[in-house]
């Protein structure tokens, strides 16, 4: 801002801004995550509190430290790091050893984001980078699931399906309502679909996200899952289970919608959602990982710049220019 000798500000147009700001987006997101955080506390008690607090604190400290190191403005109060930490905690079991939570948060912030300079430059979703680094190093700890308060077993439904087979899955007799309410094992913030949907609706109403990614994402999971199911109901899960188990809903509403790592245009976003959903189903059907949401979104992140090349039609541009 150039304050002039004649006391008027001279700056480039426009001279007004819409109310939307980056930190506003982050706080909207945090508000939207409150129901899911409450559900995590309800189902997993003190363990959940410990992991969430630790993840957030270490993310904030790492971010501030990196910003200082890079000699950039300290911007932790914008809330990016809080969001990254909280979302990371949501993907972890409440039994995670404290130092692994710190390592995960640190990797998320440092390798996933700050090494690229600042928020907005990182090509990959930091939360997911942190989680994958933990998952590759300590699969046992990241997969150390516990039985939620009121749940039946300490194994997430998709794990039962992948490792024990569909018969075992049917034996446990998972009810969709249980899954919807969160009485299932899994990452502490992924289990309660009802709470996540409430947060998602809040985001849509606040226009923090558009419908394109969630619809493309959930729609393709449903359609792909449905086709598999219709082909062989004995060997495949009901598509509704695919949508309500594992990280599907958290992914569709909060992880894939990260603007920085998703495409820019609306059509690009829709395509990106579809890529996520299809990759999830490919991994669930043929891969080694039972859930696959995190990997699918990371893979979609790598495609995001290409999907951003789906451009709107420009005014007056002649069609085939030789």
């Amino acid at each position, binding site marked *: 801002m150039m304050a002039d000798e004649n006391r008027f500000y001279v700056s480039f147009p426009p001279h007004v801004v819409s109310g939307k700001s980056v930190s506003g987006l982050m706080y909207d997101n945090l508000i939207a995550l409150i129901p899911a955080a409450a559900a995590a506390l309800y189902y997993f008690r003190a363990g959940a509190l410990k992991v969430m607090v630790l993840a957030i604190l270490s993310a904030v400290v790492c971010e501030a430290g990196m910003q200082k190191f890079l000699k950039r403005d300290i911007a932790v109060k914008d809330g990016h790091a809080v969001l990254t930490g909280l979302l990371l905690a949501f993907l972890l079991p409440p039994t995670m050893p404290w130092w692994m939570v710190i390592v995960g948060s640190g990797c998320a912030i440092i*390798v996933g984001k700050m090494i690229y300079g600042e928020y907005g430059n990182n090509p990959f979703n930091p939360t997911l980078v942190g989680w994958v*680094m933990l998952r*590759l*190093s*300590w699969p046992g700890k990241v997969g150390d699931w516990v039985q939620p308060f009121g749940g039946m077993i300490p194994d997430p439904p998709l794990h039962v399906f992948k490792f024990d087979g569909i018969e075992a899955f049917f034996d446990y007799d998972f009810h969709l309502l249980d899954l919807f309410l969160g009485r299932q094992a899994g990452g502490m913030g992924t289990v309660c679909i009802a709470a996540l949907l409430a947060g998602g609706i809040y985001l849509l109403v606040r226009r923090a996200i558009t419908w394109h990614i969630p619809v493309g994402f959930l729609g393709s999971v449903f359609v792909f899952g449905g086709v598999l199911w219709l082909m062989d109901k004995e060997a495949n899960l009901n598509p509704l289970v695919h949508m309500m188990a594992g990280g599907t809903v958290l992914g569709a509403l909060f992880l894939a919608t990260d603007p920085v790592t998703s495409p820019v245009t609306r059509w690009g976003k829709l395509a990106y959602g579809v890529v996520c959903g299809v990759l999830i189903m490919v991994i669930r059907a043929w891969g080694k990982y039972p859930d696959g949401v995190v990997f699918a979104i990371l893979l979609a992140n790598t495609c995001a710049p290409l999907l951003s090349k789906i451009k709107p039609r420009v005014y007056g541009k002649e069609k085939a220019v030789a």
Partner: protein
Amino acid sequence: MSVWKDFTDGLWKDIPPFRLVLGLCPTLAVTTAADNGLGMGLATTFVLVCSNALISILRKLIPKKVRIASYIVIIASFVVMVELFMQAYFYRLYIILGIFIPLIVVNCIILGRAEAFASKRPILNSIADGLGHGFGFTISLTIVGAFREILGAGTLFSKITLFGPHFMPFSFMVKPPGAFICLGLFLGIMNIISRGRV
């Protein structure tokens, strides 16, 4: 004096692969442990020194047009010798390093030094240059290997166990993505050290 300088250049001023960003593939592939890095580095050093020496001797005889072809023949021959020796006497390492032994032939450090240095300088300087860059490469590989091994497996030189039995290694480090990320961070840190600023 200049021989000494040619030697030390490769150890710091353009130590590969950090300053002279060449030979990335072997650096990424074999640095899962310090001893692998050491072995690969020494094998490369052998080829580098021998080819530098021979090319320097022949530098006046080789016509310009066929110089790359000649270099490739010479380098490839030394690579085959290394392959044979390693099979005979370091078989385990030979298996671990795998196709990266034959790939020394395309390691641009070697062709690069042949083209940039040995083809123009006397034999002693060329040997010094080869030794310097070879050792520089070896040191780099060993350090990266040690770093990844310590964090990723909790050992050093595959034998020395550094932590207690409860240690849970950060095994991400010894996996392929760990190689890329480690080397990227190493390069960044080297940039900070050499430029003195972020």
